[in-house]
């Protein structure tokens, strides 16, 4: 799989939440970079798409934001998980694991055969 993959619908939110969970408060650029790195540069991510996703999560109450200073002392907006967000990550992770597990059962024999 040399070509980069588009981000699947609905998965970006989970990636953002999970990244925030592991890394703590982050600004938008940092999050985008991090997601790209975590995927081993195999995801093709338009950095811009992260902002509507962040806004949606914020409207849903899973994350909150505040202005702060970046490593290079730039003014940047930092996002962090709320309690509801933390619960959401747990739940979504479990759901996602279940889904992939089920899918894996379908896919495994064909690959082996």
């Amino acid at each position, binding site marked *: 799989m040399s070509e980069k993959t588009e981000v699947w619908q609905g998965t970006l939110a989970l990636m953002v939440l999970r990244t925030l969970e592991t890394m703590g408060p982050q600004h938008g650029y*940092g999050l985008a970079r991090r997601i790209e790195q975590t995927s081993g540069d195999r995801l093709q991510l338009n*950095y*811009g798409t992260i*902002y509507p996703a962040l806004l*949606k999560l914020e409207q*849903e109450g899973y994350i909150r934001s505040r202005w702060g200073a970046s490593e*290079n002392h730039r003014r940047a*907006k930092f996002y962090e998980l709320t309690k509801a967000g933390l619960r959401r990550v747990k739940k979504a992770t479990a759901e996602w694991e279940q889904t992939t597990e089920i899918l894996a059962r379908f896919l495994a024999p064909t690959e082996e055969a």
Partner: protein
Amino acid sequence: MPRLRVFLARVLGLLRRRRADENFAAELEGHIAMHTEDGVRSGFSPDEARRRALIQLGGLEQVRQAHRDRDTLPWIESVLQDMRYAVRQLRKSRGFTFAAVSVLALGIGANAAIFTVFDNVLLKSLPVRDPSRLILLSENSRYETGRLNLNAGPPNLAFAYPAYQALRLASHGIDDLAAFSYGTAVLAWNGSTSYVNMQLVSGNYFSLLGVRPVLGRVLTPADDRKYHANPVVVISQGYWRTRFGADPSILDRTVIIDEQTYTIVGVVRHDGIFTGAPAEIFLPITLVSSGALGDYTTPGRTNVLHDPLNRWMDIVGRLSLGVAQAQADVRLNTAWWNWRQDALRVARDNIMDRRGWMQTHLTLHNGSRGISLLSRDFGEPLKILQAMALLLLLIACANVANLLLVRAARREGELAVRGALGASRRRIFQQLTIEGLLLGLVGAALGLALGWLSLRLLLATVPADNSLHSALVLGVDTRTLAFCALAGIVTSILFSLAPALLSFRIDLLRALHLQSHALTMGGSTLRSMLVGAEIAMSCALIACAAVFGWNLYQLRNTNPGFATSNVLTFAVDTGRTGRNRQQFGADLNTIEIGLKEQSGVSSAAYAADGLISGDTGGSSITVAGYTTSKSDQMVPDRNWVSTGFFSTMQIPLLAGRMFNSEDTDTAQRVAIVDQAFVRHFFRGDVQRALGGQFGFGGGDHVKMDIHIVGVIPTVRATSLTSAPPVPFLYLPYAQAEGSHPGSPASFYVRTMGDPSRLAVAVRTIVHRTDPALILSGVETMREHLSEVTYAPRIVTILSVSMGGLALLLAALGLQGLLMLAIAQRTREFGIRMALGADRGRIFTIVTALVCRVVLPGIAAGALIGWAGVRELVHHDASLVQTPLSVFAAEGVLLIAVMALASYMPARRAAAIDPMRALRAE
């Protein structure tokens, strides 16, 4: 709920748009800066690093748009945007906006005014607990309900007290039944006397309606049981304020009502069941047996509370929760039938038509609106007026639709540009609809103001003591507001639909070259049809107006059969405690003599019932030698008059003699009857009538001791309307004795000169006779007659102004249509003229155009009008047939107005200069 949270957040986002945009711009700027720095660190030149950062971001503007769409509700935002755009557009074309808004305001204004009255008279529920479960009872039987007394109250509501008691016992499916009766009394307090509207109620009345006292207590069933000495009264809050200045210490004070002392025990926020004539005091209904409240007991009969034949009160009930009206209907009818059978056993001798007595049915009416006195006289015309108003609104709608179509045709280019720039068809549709909606709402707001104003103006023409006054003296309430808003929205949808739909057909490319004719051509057929429809509807409207107008004209020109000029009338009532009726009779004579002594007075007389007062009152009679057939129970109307009454009113004598001073209390009892009486009881034989005798009451034991001594022509004594007059008999006031007319008495004074000049003298004479006498209604006979025509007059004013407005709108519509058609065909006309067509020919073409629109309109209008008028006359029995010539005149008027409207455009077409027309392009 994250979903609600998100929605609220986005609504909030709508509001802080600017700050959010600035914030996000800053965030993005930071993002790009950090990305660029990282790029520079990995070896790119700053410019290259920035370029890469921007590419990776996915386009600055796209990100901003995506963020913005997420932050707000894009749909609402686009609506707001269109709204702002529409406001700008409407402000730019002021002429169009002014025309459209004023047409709408007229249409909605007429509706607002009429709906306010309509709502008040026909729709509003009584302000009591759960009014929807209230029912009113009425009975129909061959025995009691002829055509008698149909005008004297809500039809056939009256019951006898024993019937109420019997029905109440069987009240299964009914929470309870309460009895009530309406009347007026004279109330004296603190040295002044005045009339009050009273409602007699059974003790359970207030609890049945769920009315609680504001002060003190309400009447209770305990008040029913103390038949005679129970002088308590409950007053309405309104009366408490106006008469007693909202005095908080009013409880336990005493007032004098009809010569008896009562203690005020409570104040209620309740105006009785009769809407349009608010009750001011409430008394226990059982008090009538004491005789204190006037003449309830028929002479020679038992106590009114035990008399099964004396029907004098109404019944209101409350359905039990979850009980269908049909169920209760069956139960009550069974009880009713049983009672009728019992009553037949008890009062066998007094019931003449025994089979007719048992042919009876009890009807349950919806009681949620109470008994509207106004809806009886005013209800049917009001429904028709409301229908007319809605038709007028449709015409206004068609007019505005036409204006919009013309405007859309002019804006085709603009719409095409918007389309070419990427506006979706949906968006253009939305924009046109929003523009329409804005027009509609502004029109509705103005219409509301206009409606309110016209109601005020109308109110100014009605005197405060007329019952119509209460229907008109209304503020704007939420229902009228809602009605206007709805009218505005619905009409704007109606009139903006056509141009908005046509906008789908715009061919972008051709429109950009100003060659598309989607709106211009597609619209022109539609426009002709709209104008045709306007003409049709206005034709129908003026047909209705013509019927009302003709009726008013007839009413005004009715000859009542007595003199109406040079007559002053007024009423005198006894208002003092302890005054008995003999004394009152003496007072009346004193006043009569005093009046005759005045210079300029040729004669004076008085009567128990006023002329043209709407009061009908009769009792059944038995005429010697006349057998009452079972199917027809004719109950003649009657009046007690002083000796000079007929000569004063210039009613001629056909045969026999007038009353004279010898017809006293002790002399032979006499009567004068009218021609209708003779026709009915003596087959029109005047000579036989002159020897005739009759007595009051029915059955076998009636004393027929009243001799008919004179015959007069039939006059319209009680009302001016065209219903065939009921037989009428007159008795000498001096012989009134037991079956005495209650006070007041109405006076009639014939004068040589202007009767109104006598008013001051009247006041002096009455007060000189006794200062406690109540004088009211001093006016000339002509004033009195014009007063009773207020309702038809207002209906006529409203219908004629709506008809006129409709005609005007239709004419304007036609003119607009022609102007545009001619403007579009200027080139064609130019060519025709250049090829030899003369002006006459052009004129013919335009005339043909007019005829194609107007003639089908008039044809359709005549049909609608015919159906409408049929319906009108069918619904309102008091309307007389309108002669065809009136409608013909109406048609001529319509054609004349349309001709006038087309004259200017036609002249303009004929005046086209062919050379200039051809060079124009």
